[in-house]
């Protein structure tokens, strides 16, 4: 399917659905663990808005790329899994990069390190470990997203057979 064939509304819908579901599930998790007060209390409003905007933007970008290459209607769940894993991992990594840059900038300007060498070593370790973790988490979320998307397409097909 050519990228121009993809309805932008489809991309925007699924990107926003996945982003907001992630946030809602995250909040539910924080409530269940009792960590909502501590975490949200330490989150600046502007930073929170920027992070959400970054996540939304990254997800929209990767969804546009994904559905420019994959025909959601004509691809089975099995066929959708591989591109979903790849694009999910890409989404996770790109969002981690945004997080990393924010944290690195805050850490570098705080002066809370002994030397430049210490700073670079710490950031390299965080970048490496975080990249691996974000790729794995992103891939897993991508699989869940693919299952949800296929279920929705199937539900539309059941309600309105061709």
């Amino acid at each position, binding site marked *: *399917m050519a990228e121009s*064939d993809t*309805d932008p*509304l*489809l991309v*925007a*819908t*699924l990107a*926003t*659905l996945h*982003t*907001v*579901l992630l*946030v*809602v*599930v995250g*909040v*539910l998790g924080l*409530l269940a663990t*009792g960590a*909502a*007060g*501590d*975490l*949200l*209390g*330490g*989150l600046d*409003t502007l930073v*929170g*808005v920027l992070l*959400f*905007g970054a996540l*939304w933007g990254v997800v929209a970008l990767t969804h546009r790329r994904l559905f420019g290459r994959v*025909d*959601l*209607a*004509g*691809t089975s769940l099995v066929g959708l899994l591989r591109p979903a894993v790849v694009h999910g991992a890409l989404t996770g990594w790109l969002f981690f990069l945004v997080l990393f840059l924010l944290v690195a900038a805050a850490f570098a300007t705080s002066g809370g390190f002994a030397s430049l060498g210490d700073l670079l070593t710490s950031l390299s370790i965080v970048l490496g470990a975080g990249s691996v973790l974000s790729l794995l988490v992103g891939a897993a979320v991508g699989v869940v997203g693919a299952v*949800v998307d296929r279920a*929705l*397409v*199937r*539900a*539309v*097909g*059941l*309600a*309105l*057979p*061709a």
Partner: protein
Amino acid sequence: MSLATELAVRWVHVLAVSLLLGGSALTWLALRQRRGTPARGAGDDPSLAPTLALAGGYEWLFWLAVGLLAVTGVGNLGAMAPAIPTSGPWTTTLVAKLLLLVALLLGSAWRTLLVVRLRAEIAGGATVGAGANAREDRTPRADHAALDARSRSLLRRSYAATTLVLGVLLALAEVLAHG
């Protein structure tokens, strides 16, 4: 969070809900008014095209508002931090509201995909939920008979359900704010 920021976050939150609820109610009413209206002359258009244009516009607005609702909802919760209750009736209501929101999101994604599919059928393009083979034989279906009563009924009911669920969510939000 400063008072000005807190007010701004709440204002955007309320504005987003207003757009969602008002838009779905108006789209539902527009679909109800077109129910069973036959073509009376050459200038009349009994097809779903104008309604789908309205619905498509609302869907864009819906998902934009949902994004704003999510970020400002977390902001509203953050304004209460660190004293966010972790148990009790307030927390139960919040969890119920969030679960109902998840149901609304999934149902709304289905509704939007339905609109995308019907728009594609009118244009004779790729569809959602029809399967790959169904697209092979598709020709432009701009003629009025192509989109049947079932499509209209599905759309009408989905916007009615959206309006109803949003009303319940609004009631739960009121309980959380003032209950």
